[in-house]
């Protein structure tokens, strides 16, 4: 799974992208966040306040129960502030 991080999520995790071998049990966004949070303190901190993180699956906004699959691109970022 291709994972992307932007803005302060990127800064907290310390990288902008990674290809992760996500275990079989991870079937939706919520599972993915739980799994990532267990991978180290940087992830734990990035996802500490879930309400402040937005998620896109294959470049579409997603919710906690949006399914994720092997070849998906999943991005995590703060609420947007462009314009």
């Amino acid at each position, binding site marked *: 799974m291709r994972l992307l991080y932007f*803005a302060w999520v990127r800064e907290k995790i310390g990288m902008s992208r990674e290809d992760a071998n996500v275990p079989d049990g991870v079937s939706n966004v919520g599972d993915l966040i739980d799994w990532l949070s267990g991978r180290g303190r940087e992830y734990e901190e990035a996802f500490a306040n879930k309400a402040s993180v*937005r998620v896109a699956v294959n470049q579409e906004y997603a919710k906690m129960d949006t399914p994720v699959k092997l070849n998906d691109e999943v991005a995590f970022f703060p609420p*947007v502030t462009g314009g």
Partner: protein
Amino acid sequence: MVVRVQTAPFDAGKELALITEGNFNIGGVCSFIGLVRDITPSGKINAMTLEHYPGMTEKALQKIECEAHDRWPLESTLILHRYGKLYPGDQIVFVAATSSHRHAAFEACHFLIDWLKTQAPFWKLEDSPSGGRWVEARARDDKAAERWGHGPNQKPNLT
């Protein structure tokens, strides 16, 4: 429909000429330019850096344009957004809508910028005298977007 994400500044007059040229059904063109201010709600800034999500950004902007065309009888629309390092007075974003009548042009243009602010994946990092600071999303912008009805995208958060 025109969407462009670029580091370079844009020439508003030239862009407006391009989206109106040869279309004699256009009676009104409403446009909006967002500029970098030197004072923001959190204080004085020297510069700001705009980060975005290449790929998703273009898709999100196209969707916003499509939504505008669904809602109003428009002849053409335009969204240009810059990224990278920008300084006070620099242009950030340029949106425009053209229509045979001015009210549709005004409403659609206002809609484009309101939705862009809550839907398009851009993030601002302010460079202030006390260091870098990620701009926080503002409730006022959410309210402005809500005026136009429920957004399809960003609203459902993770909680």
